[in-house]
């Protein structure tokens, strides 16, 4: 029973990390209408950034801020140079273009840091375990990640729901032309959303680096999981993505522990069910 509790926490922690990635993916789709297959690569880049920053400075705690700042800048440049042009293209074009980006990012990673697996040490400050229930202990770093993700999620909800910029992002998702007619630069909103989505994915990568190794192609499986979250939550819905991420995190984690034979397809099966039963998403309104 206590082991079960630990797995639940594991599932929630994985789910919250998934939320950081899929919230950007779903916002970018909702606001810009762009399907970005390279979103998983941004997670990988964030993880490698953490590996490099922690390696050079010896201080892991510089990595998350570096991922956020670097992600905002990198995302803004990507949007201005490339994604702005993808916006009004067919989805097939977007898929091809962003698939090419995956290859490009992997190639860049290979030539910059090579193809080896790397471990990133858990920061010393949090390198201990917290007793949970009855003899079971839980990594303090994992708990910290859980807390950081929750904070970011709460911040996003408040920002999107309560601020004027947040309202203009929701408005731009509905009708960018009308946003322009009100004197607000919808293009700037697109850049902002893409930059924020990139920063969130890279932050997730940096936070995940000490939890798993840093390795080539690590963005692929997270991309698939994130797409499943986006579909289950309802395309474009950040709130939906939150609950869907928790659900997928739990099902995937518990599945792998208790039903390893079917764990691989459980989440995909859930997505298929949602698509056929509620194609607008399990958590979408109306």
């Amino acid at each position, binding site marked *: 029973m206590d082991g079960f509790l630990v797995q639940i926490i594991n599932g929630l922690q994985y789910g919250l990390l998934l939320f950081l990635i899929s919230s950007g993916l779903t916002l970018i789709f909702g606001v810009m209408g762009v399907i970005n297959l390279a979103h998983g690569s941004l997670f990988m880049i964030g993880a490698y950034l953490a590996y490099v920053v922690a390696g050079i400075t010896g201080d892991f705690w510089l990595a998350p801020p570096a991922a956020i700042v670097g992600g905002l800048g990198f995302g803004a440049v990507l949007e201005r140079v490339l994604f702005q042009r993808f916006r009004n293209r067919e989805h097939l074009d977007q898929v091809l273009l962003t698939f090419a980006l995956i290859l490009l990012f992997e190639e860049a990673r290979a030539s910059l840091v090579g193809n080896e697996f790397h471990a990133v040490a858990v920061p010393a400050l949090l390198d201990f375990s917290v007793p949970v229930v009855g003899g079971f202990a839980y990594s303090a770093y994992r708990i910290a990640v859980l807390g950081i993700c929750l904070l970011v999620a709460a911040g996003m909800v408040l920002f999107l729901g309560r601020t004027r910029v947040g309202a*203009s992002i*929701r408005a731009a998702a509905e009708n960018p032309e009308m946003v*322009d007619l009100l*004197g607000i630069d919808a293009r700037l909103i697109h850049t902002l959303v893409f930059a924020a989505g990139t920063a969130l994915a890279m932050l997730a990568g940096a936070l995940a680096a000490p939890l798993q190794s840093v390795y080539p192609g690590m963005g692929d499986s997270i991309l698939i999981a994130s797409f499943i979250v986006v579909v289950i939550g309802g395309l474009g819905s950040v709130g939906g993505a939150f609950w869907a991420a928790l659900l997928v995190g739990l099902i995937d984690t518990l599945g792998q522990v208790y039903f390893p034979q079917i764990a691989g397809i459980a989440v995909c099966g859930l997505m298929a069910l949602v698509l056929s039963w509620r194609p607008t998403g399990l958590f979408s309104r109306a």
Partner: protein
Amino acid sequence: MNAILEARDLSAGYDESRILQGVNLALHPGEAIGLMGRNGMGKTTLIRTLIGLLPAREGSVLLDGIDAAALPVFERARRGIAVVPENRGIFASLSVRENLRLAARPGSWSEERVLALFPRLGRRIGNRGNQLSGGEQQMLAIGRALMTNPRVLILDEATEGLAPLMRDEIWRVIGVVREAGVASIIVDKTVDAVLSVADRVVVLVKGSVVHDGPPASLRADPDLMARCLGVAG
């Protein structure tokens, strides 16, 4: 006095089709222009070209006497041109308050003043855009445009499809806005109402201006009224 907004020999259209053919039109501060013409004559196309949603193919749009070709839509809006589009453009998932506040720019039109103009919106302030009736949406669209503190308010079929009481309400507000000194371009099918509020009436036929003059000159020409507006003289 310099025109705020002007079209000079303006031509524009969609893909292959050329809709506007050498349109000339000048709107001066505080002036109300009634833009008329049957369905499909190019009124909406002219509005879209003035605000920059469609590029000018030939001729130009001038804002305060300066060619606006390089100004994107949001920049023209910031310089004081507000458009209430045919479809109203209410953000369905945003509340009435959010719809209004999103648009706010400094000036005398505040949330309080807009709500005083449309008391009905005040009672719906927390409702989402998609929970409003058609008339309430139209009020919100106009109120939101006023929140930008425009020098020019362009209304595209603002009373279309509304119940008579709602129409009266919109016409009342158009009168108030005019008294407040905001210039306007009013596109509407209700000929009598347009003629009574406008300083000048411009009639479009197949993308060309066939009449530009005071309402009296149009009233005096029942033949033109019948041909171009479908109004029995």
